């Protein structure tokens, strides 16, 4: 194992025990402080995101203590997360108390779109500091929003992440499950280009299927690509615009809150 040390002439470098050809004699160069155990290398072996994960675990405990199922919803910009959420809140708010944590680089446009639809609470996190902003939510940002959410009065919390197919997949924010919205206008190859995101999602909502007659999109090819990177993914075909598939999505979203009845109770979970 190479070790860093500094010589009397001010140079610093690393080498194994005998690369000075001096038999590893420690009276050559300045080896002060080097113990024979090689104490200059400090083994860390810690996950790069350990601090984020620690806070995410605390968030998860807070959600669990309040009895709130929390889902992290991710997608590229424009795939239809907010429109799907509007449908979702309208469909579920009579049965479940839903909160939304809205993550956006800037503006309150999405949060405003959800207001008044029957959600128990909508909390906005803007990730920007001046121009530009973080491309994802992390556990600290979500923790900062918890104080503004009445967790004890919620059954379900949806965290709408920043629109981005790369970064959000790397950051645990304390959710219980992850889902993504994918629009058929995005192209069949996306699972192969963004495998980490498609692997991170337990459920993939294939949105905008009402557009299929107007597109060259090959749904079979997309599903094969998705299966190649994430064989276990739950696939839900939907159109947030027409409402197709929204019921199936709501059932998945409600998860262990699954005694939920949609549409007056005639479509109870089997």
């Amino acid at each position: 194992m190479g070790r860093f040390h500094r010589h009397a002439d001010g140079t610093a470098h690393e080498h194994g025990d005998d690369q000075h050809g001096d038999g590893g004699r420690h009276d050559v160069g300045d080896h002060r402080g080097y113990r024979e155990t090689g104490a200059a290398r400090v083994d860390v072996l810690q996950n790069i995101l350990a601090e984020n994960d620690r806070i995410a675990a605390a968030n998860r405990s807070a959600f669990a203590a309040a009895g709130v199922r929390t889902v992290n919803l991710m997608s590229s910009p424009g795939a239809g997360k907010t429109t799907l959420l509007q449908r979702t809140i309208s469909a579920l708010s009579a049965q479940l108390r839903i909160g939304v944590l809205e993550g956006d680089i800037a503006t309150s446009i999405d949060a405003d779109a959800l207001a008044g639809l029957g959600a128990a609470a909508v909390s906005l996190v803007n990730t920007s500091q001046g121009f530009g902003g973080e491309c994802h939510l992390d556990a600290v940002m979500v923790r900062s929003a918890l104080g503004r959410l009445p967790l004890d009065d919620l059954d379900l919390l949806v965290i709408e992440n920043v629109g981005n197919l790369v970064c959000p997949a790397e950051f645990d924010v304390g959710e219980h499950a992850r889902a993504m919205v994918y629009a058929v206008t995005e192209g069949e190859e996306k699972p192969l280009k963004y495998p980490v995101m498609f692997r991170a999602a337990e459920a993939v909502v294939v949105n905008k299927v009402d557009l299929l007659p107007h597109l060259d999109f090959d749904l079979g090819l997309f599903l094969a690509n998705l299966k190649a990177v994430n064989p276990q993914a739950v696939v839900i075909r939907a159109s947030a615009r027409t409402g197709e598939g929204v019921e199936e999505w709501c059932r998945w979203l409600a998860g262990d809150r699954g005694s939920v009845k949609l549409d007056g109770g005639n479509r109870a979970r089997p």
Partner: protein
Amino acid sequence: MHELALAQAIADTARKHAAGAPVGRVAVRIGRFRQAAPDSLSFSWQLLTEGSELDGCELSIEHVPAVITCKRCGAGTKLDWPILQCRTCESTDVALVSGEEFLVVAIDLLEVPHGPVPPPR
């Protein structure tokens, strides 16, 4: 895009473990299935450490290939593509055995603080 956040996390970890000692190098291990563009991470690291106590500290990145083991035939496959399929028997019933590493492995200190050596007992 999130490499600056990663560089910050790496720097925080290095500082914590260095406990005030100057750090010459930080070694990280990143699997192919993680998303950290090496150039962007190195650039972020330089940007972030300049002028700080980690100024001049080298970030050494070790990449780990993505490898799967087939649960059906037992063969191992090193992946060039993110397709989780056994190259030998084409089964998709596989386990990812490496490629998701995301570790600060070690830090190399330039000097070890050397307080008085405790007397032998």
